[in-house]
């Protein structure tokens, strides 16, 4: 657990450092600021400073104090279960621009049912077709909320 805790704290410190660098104007006088006002950069600078200091102390404590022995994941199967979800999810979101929401959803639901669920083809097909259809009826027809369309098939609702 120790390296992960320290690594996470270090990442937060890095973000804080970048934000402080971006807000370095906190120490430069800005023309036109109202009397008494601290300007636009002061607040993000000190917020980032607090974040960095808190994360640094947290990381230091993780480095020096006893930490739980167990690993970050319970087993290999739990890592696989997370990756099985993350990879298709990222691919699904990336495919919106080319496939549009409905085709991407049909593929995502169908492939999930086939690959992870190992369902028979008709259940896979039902999952892939009925989900986007239900969403289309509820969101686009019912609530008039438009979802992303494909750039390749202009004019059709998918």
């Amino acid at each position, binding site marked *: 657990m120790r390296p992960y*805790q320290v690594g*996470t704290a270090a990442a*937060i410190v890095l*973000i*804080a450092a970048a*934000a402080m660098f*971006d807000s370095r104007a906190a120490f430069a006088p*800005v023309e*036109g600021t109202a*009397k*008494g*006002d*601290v*300007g*636009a*950069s002061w*607040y993000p600078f000190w*917020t*980032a400073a607090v*974040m960095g200091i*808190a*994360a640094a*102390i*947290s990381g230091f*404590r993780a480095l020096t*104090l*006893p930490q739980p022995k167990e690993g970050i*994941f*319970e*087993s290999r*199967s*739990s*890592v*696989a*279960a*997370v990756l*099985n*979800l*993350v990879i298709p*999810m*990222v691919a699904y*979101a990336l495919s*919106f621009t080319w496939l549009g*929401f409905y085709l991407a*959803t049909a593929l*995502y*639901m169908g492939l*999930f*049912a086939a690959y992870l*669920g190992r*369902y028979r083809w008709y259940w896979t097909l039902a*999952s892939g077709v009925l*989900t986007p259809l239900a*969403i289309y009826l509820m*969101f686009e027809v019912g*609530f*008039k*909320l438009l*979802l*992303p369309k494909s750039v390749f098939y202009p004019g059709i609702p998918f």
Partner: protein
Amino acid sequence: MEVFGLLAGGFGTALQPINLAFLLVGVTLGLVIGVLPGLGGTSGVAILLPISVVIARGDIAGANSTTAIILLAGIYWGALFGGVITSILFNIPGEPWSVVLLFDGFPLAKRKGKPGLALTSSFLSSFVGAFIATVLFTLFAKEIADRALFFGPPELFAVFVLSFATLVGLGAESPLKALAMLALGLLLAAVGFDTITGQARLIPLSGTDNETLRGLQINLLAGIGFVPVTIGLFGIGEILASAEEQGIGYMEKISAKLGFKDLLEAFAALRQRWFLVISNSVIGFLFGVLPGHGATAASFLGYGLARQYSKNKEDFGKGEISGIMGPQATADAAGVASLVPMVTLGVPGSPTSAVMMAGLFVWGLQPGPLLFTEHSDFVWGLIASIYVGHFLTFVICLLAVPLLAAIMRVPYAIITPFIVVISIIGSYSLNNSMLDVSFTILFGLVGYWLRKMKYPLAPLVVALVLGDSTERELRKTLIAGGGNIGFFFSSGLATVMIALAVVILLLPFVRPAIARARGQRPAAAHAAD
């Protein structure tokens, strides 16, 4: 009393057919969300925020912003009850606030063979807890709001500081990690245009010639949306955590059908424990009013209190009914109470009420004391709907447990991608923005990791929604005082609140020192971490 007249008017609003219909939809959806382990009340409310916008702007005949808040609040009430079913029948917490039911709820259902009693006693105590909290809400909310109307920038800033201090100092997790998350939330809220000077802030790689990056920078100038971040942290983050548990594998299951006998038995149990349920409800209300704590922390507090003051301590963990009724009453009372600071002060009491508060901003309402004077129908309609909503939820739970439990039979390979799909719809449709979808996925992964590293997410979410207001009040105070820091202490109330905030912030660091001085071992290694 004036409040009873106002409440009667609120019932008139809440019982309008359109509001009643959306309340029913809300509590039913909330129950489903509560039963599903991968989807929580917070993300459920966030996902439906775009639909609430359609409702609030009156696109549906007869509906308005009151209908929208009734829908969202209904989801919360349903989710508060729904998690119970999964915990008691499947030994899996459907919601974070029902984790505590695994200790006695599941053993009562399995070892003692009384799933009906476990469920009905839980629903009954939830209902009583929520009812008591709603009565307190009714009696005190207007009083608090009337006083808050006279708050100036120093008092408002002090309220925010006190809220943040309770998140850091009274949270269950490491205060340093909570502080880092709080600051991260404030920092994310600062991205984009400064609302006072109009300067661009925290825009990465400014001055680049890359077209894609410039497009991203232009989008970022409007700020990072609260809804996509919350759906990511609580929706995608939870589903990833749930996927990991599915990977581990084992799931218990008990069947239950509730009968009149179970209800009578639950009433008898309540009669024996009336003092515990009422006192825990009042404590839950007081605890829930504190920003950021909501139902989850309250449920553990309620369990601790029930055990502490029980004559049968040794029965706890083996199916003791007090171990179900105590935490349930506290959790539901805290859930209701978390709306009190949102409505009266414009400060969310829990991550779920933070999402609702974001909804109010989107619908064009300003959360805070002015709601009571400018949108009285809205506030009293909401308060009345809490009574009606909890009654509806209670009745549905008694009638439909087998049906709700059947949701758990929907296979993982269908329900999991479906939750991802609706999370992405919720994130996209508020602004029709693919950048928001990217934020949802990014913050989903970040939230999952932070959860594993035991970084609390509630301070991040509350700070993100309050960040702009905090900075505005800070700078207005400085401008009003001409840069004099003493102006923060210009009123007695502001001074007391800031002093209280300092004490609360120091608590986690002082407690271990006191324990050491008394020769005791600090309770946890990270007590001051």
